[in-house]
């Protein structure tokens, strides 16, 4: 299938742009950096759309099923005869879909930033980071090898670290960047160990081969990995749970989500790119990529769906209490990704598990558009108001008519009100949940109502409520900020109407879906109720919200403090870990190592300092440790642990 060779250009163009801007940006592209980056990405986007057209409508299908195509793969570092690290491209419906989503949203962000970041001193640096991020994300999406995906996964982490910490003279931004990096790194450790276990049993790192070997429960590799165990759980479950841990870290799933709200310290267009449509869905993408393997292990699926649904609910509750508009959006992202995650984990007793997978990918697709629209809208608002706090806003609909209209469309979409995009994808998810697990279905239903409530709380607080104190001295923003809003709004309107199940399913064969009017009544009614409640509370200024908060008492306070999860982490790391590990180590170093050193320094007589160095016991103590080690090893291995 060499006809797809041109795909390599899609990630390479942003890479070239990164290298150019990174190396020469400050000298030669000080003002044209934005144009250069945007043009490179526009070309990538066009090629992505062309590739999608070719794949879905011309030659992706064989016997009515979309094929996995590997147009090329270069063996890079062969570890042993069967294990080798390859650099390749894997095309299948989800990677093509992600290509389109990533390049398109990134293009919108590039355009939007032309206006938003204008006048920024490190303008060219910003665009070089943006290009690096886009390159790594596109590389991640196209990876044909589990190890290759891990590399790009790390690279995405590094570039998002750079972007979140872009305002590096702001301590909170640097802290947030560090927190995001360390939390996701911690999760990646699980991913790495998971890869090691999977590759050890399946003897391959290549995705298609890995899936083939492990998705058939009768195969040799599957039997081996399922029969080996550790702490009463099979190696298979361990490996999948660890890989999922990596995904959960990147996708900000409970309890690894704590980095996401803080990451809002980055420039707002960056949030639209990283924390709406691309990096945070990488975890969902990873699980989807290995879905045939995951779907043979019920324990792992259950873990995924409950992690997803709990994250969705918790994030929705917290979002209802936050006042920083970007944090509300951050929690809503976490909540929506929770939807995608639990939909992947649904495994109905009867029938195939295709619907959950399809619904999850569908929601990923629609969510990318309306969430990046919301973030960019928030960017325009912050640009106008110079504040992140919704209490500083109100009545903005008069000053920002276009932002108002597009923001409203996005809110309706995320709330799941027909005929906007979010309605269709959420509907499929709920349908899949209804078919397999009623508990999850009800939680998802409640979360849906909460979603409508907090989104419209945001909407009414920003655009209605009290009258604006702002003057019309500056407008909504330059054209470059308006165009992406309009384009994304159009996509939000039409994305839901695509016949998604025709194209993207777990096994490549189209499935039948239909909107069941009776089934839709409950979620839509709940969404409307949430909206009306938000309108009643927040459309006009008053003390109703405060009274409600007082009435809810402890629950409100707990949600406002994000259920104290950050504090729990602090307690564990600072108090428990520090006291149990750090302190003894420090004590040892101070008293045994430094103590002897200080002892030596204290004696400053004129006698040969060399003999002193020996006589003060230091070298003897080294010998003692040495001998102790020999004795311990001997006793242990000769008598105890034969």
């Amino acid at each position: 299938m060499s006809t797809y060779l041109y795909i390599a250009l899609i990630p390479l163009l942003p890479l070239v742009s990164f290298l150019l801007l990174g190396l020469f940006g400050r000298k030669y592209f000080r003002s044209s950096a934005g144009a250069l980056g945007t043009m490179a990405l526009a070309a990538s986007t066009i090629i992505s759309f062309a590739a999608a057209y070719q794949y879905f409508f011309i030659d992706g299908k064989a016997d009515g099923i979309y094929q996995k195509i590997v147009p090329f793969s270069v063996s890079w570092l062969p570890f042993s005869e069967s294990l080798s690290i390859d650099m390749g491209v894997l095309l299948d419906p989800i990677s093509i879909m992600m290509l389109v989503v990533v390049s398109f949203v990134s293009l919108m962000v590039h355009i939007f930033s032309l206006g938003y970041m204008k006048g920024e001193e490190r303008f060219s640096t910003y665009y070089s980071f943006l290009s690096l991020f886009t390159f790594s994300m596109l590389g991640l999406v196209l990876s044909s090898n589990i190890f290759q995906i891990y590399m790009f996964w790390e690279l995405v982490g590094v570039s998002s670290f750079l972007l979140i910490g872009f305002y590096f003279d702001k301590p909170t931004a640097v802290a947030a960047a560090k927190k995001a990096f360390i939390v996701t790194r911690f999760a990646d450790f699980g991913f790495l160990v998971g890869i090691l276990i999977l590759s050890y049993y399946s003897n391959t790192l290549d995705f298609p081969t890995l899936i083939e070997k492990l998705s058939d429960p009768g195969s040799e590799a599957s039997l081996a990995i399922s029969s080996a165990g550790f702490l009463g759980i099979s190696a298979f479950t361990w490996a999948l749970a660890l890989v999922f841990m990596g995904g959960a870290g990147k996708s900000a799933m409970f309890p690894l989500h704590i980095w996401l709200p803080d990451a809002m310290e980055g420039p707002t267009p960056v949030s639209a790119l990283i924390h709406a449509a691309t990096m945070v869905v990488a975890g969902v993408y990873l699980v989807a990529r290995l879905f045939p393997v995951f779907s043979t292990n019920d324990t792992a699926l259950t873990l995924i769906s409950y992690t997803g649904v709990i994250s969705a609910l918790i994030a929705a509750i917290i979002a209802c209490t936050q006042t920083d508009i970007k944090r509300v959006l951050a929690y809503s992202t976490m909540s929506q990704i929770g939807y995608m995650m639990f939909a992947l984990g649904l495994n109905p007793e009867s029938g195939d598990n295709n619907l959950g997978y399809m619904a999850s990918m569908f929601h990923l697709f629609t969510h990318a558009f309306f969430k990046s629209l919301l973030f960019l809208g928030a960017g325009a608002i912050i640009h106008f108001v110079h504040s992140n706090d919704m209490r500083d806003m109100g009545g903005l609909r008069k000053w920002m008519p276009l932002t108002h209209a597009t923001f409203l469309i996005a809110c309706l979409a995320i709330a799941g009100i027909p005929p906007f995009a979010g309605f269709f994808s959420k509907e499929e998810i709920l349908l899949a949940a209804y078919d397999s697990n009623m508990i999850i279905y009800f939680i998802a239903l409640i979360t849906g109502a909460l979603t409508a409530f907090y989104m419209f709380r945001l909407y009414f607080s920003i655009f209605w409520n009290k009258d604006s104190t702002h003057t019309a001295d500056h407008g909504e923003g330059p054209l470059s900020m308006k165009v992406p809003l309009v384009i994304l709004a159009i996509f939000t309107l039409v994305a839901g109407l695509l016949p998604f199940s025709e194209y993207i399913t777990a096994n490549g064969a189209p499935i039948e879906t239909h909107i069941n009017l009776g089934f839709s009544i409950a979620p839509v009614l709940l969404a409307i109720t949430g909206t009306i409640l938000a309108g009643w509370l927040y459309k006009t200024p008053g003390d109703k919200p405060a009274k409600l908060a007082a009435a809810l008492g402890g629950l409100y306070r707990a949600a406002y403090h994000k259920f104290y999860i950050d504090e729990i982490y602090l307690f564990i790391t600072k108090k428990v870990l520090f006291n149990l590990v750090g302190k003894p180590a420090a004590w040892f170093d101070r008293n045994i190592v430094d103590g002897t050193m200080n002892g030596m320094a204290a004696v400053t007589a004129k006698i040969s300092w060399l003999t002193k160095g020996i006589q003060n016991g230091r070298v003897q103590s080294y010998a003692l440790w040495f001998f102790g080690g020999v004795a311990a090893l001997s006793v242990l291995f000769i008598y105890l642990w034969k």
Partner: protein
Amino acid sequence: MNDLLIIMKQELLLTLIIFVLLTLKIAKDMDNGAFLNLVNLLLAINFVVGFLGGMEGMLFNEMYHTNSLIILEKNILNLGTLIISLQSWSWLKDHKHVAEFYILLLCTLLGMFFMISAGNLLMFYLGLELSTIPLAAIANFDLAKRKSSEAAMKLIISSAFSSGLLLFGISLVYGSTGTLGFAGIAASYSADPMQLFAFVLLLAGFGFKISAVPFHLWTADVYEGAPVAVTSYLSVISKGAILFVLVPVLYTVFKPIAESWYNMLYLLSVVTIIVGNLFAIRQENFKRFLAFSSIAQVGFILVGITGSSSAGSSAVVYFVLIYIFSNLAAFGVVSFVSATTGREGISDYKGFYKTNPVLSWVLAIGLFSLAGVPPTAGFFGKFFLLLAGAGKGNYILLTIAALNMIISLYYYLRIVKAIFMDSNDHPIEKLSVPVFPKLALYLCMAGIVFTGFVRYVYDYIQSLSIGF
């Protein structure tokens, strides 16, 4: 006779160089600059000739043997020595005893060559001593610094102690098997208590040289006190040589007690990684920091060795090669900064990027590679070690190792942050790097990129590797 010349080519060439330097020292009064040019040229020739037409074989009743892997390992050590020599240019150009420095240094290298090629415990012991005693002498070469003499004294006394125990172990081996030849030992070794004890003593001797916990305590003092050139030589070349011996000794000579040594290595690697990391976090002196972090690195190498497969063996050689490049990149910058400004604290490096962007990048890439951040070569090295270790299916070991990779990332990153993000009222001034140290840094950078991104290096190593 001709065979002997070719088989021992690397040793003979090195001996020749030593004699040339000795003669020059006695016969002619050369100024330091010319002398250093000559030495570096000779070392470069030595490195290149090492690659030409080697031959496998055994000599002297199996006392000495060589094969393609051993030739490669010696070449790796040659390269490392050359880089260190280039890096120390700034330090040596004003030193009174340059010729002595090189003569002693090359003697230790010669000792390592004999050690790697040993086919007999006696030969191994001789090589080991030849590679240690002159090192203690050159650890004292910062003549004006007390700490340098202290380091030398500590090194020689600790080594003597470890050698004593090692000899005791060797004599027990001889007593119980009646032979010192590797082949003979392999044929008659078993897990009876005396032989296990003898093995523990040998392992402790190895552990001392690679500074595995708890045999590591000399490391920090000696590394801090010795001149940076010696420190980097100790932490890279010495360690590499011992690791090159350790793998075949464990895999072939002590194969009969593989189960026992697997468990011992398991224990040692866990302790070494954890202790190395915990201490590295607290260090404020850059050299001391590198010393402790290199202890943790050895722990990772031990994880790879536990794999007991040809993959384990090739992963170790591959990692040592990468480790040489990465560690010398970091040491190179630190050594240059320390030689020109005398500043060695980590906090001195705050704002280093503002004044020395190129050196900062070299240092950062070296540290990233040491930390194992993809896509630097160090990442592949570590990943292969873990993959080799995974061959035994010991998840506890893997989990500990992977967790520690994150911890180590934290402290490496802390330095990178200091270099790039922290501000400093008195940053290290702008430095211009002379030709030789610059060349060394370029070599390291090229090495990090080349070994990571080009498959032939690993392919070649793998094609030569042994295992069982």
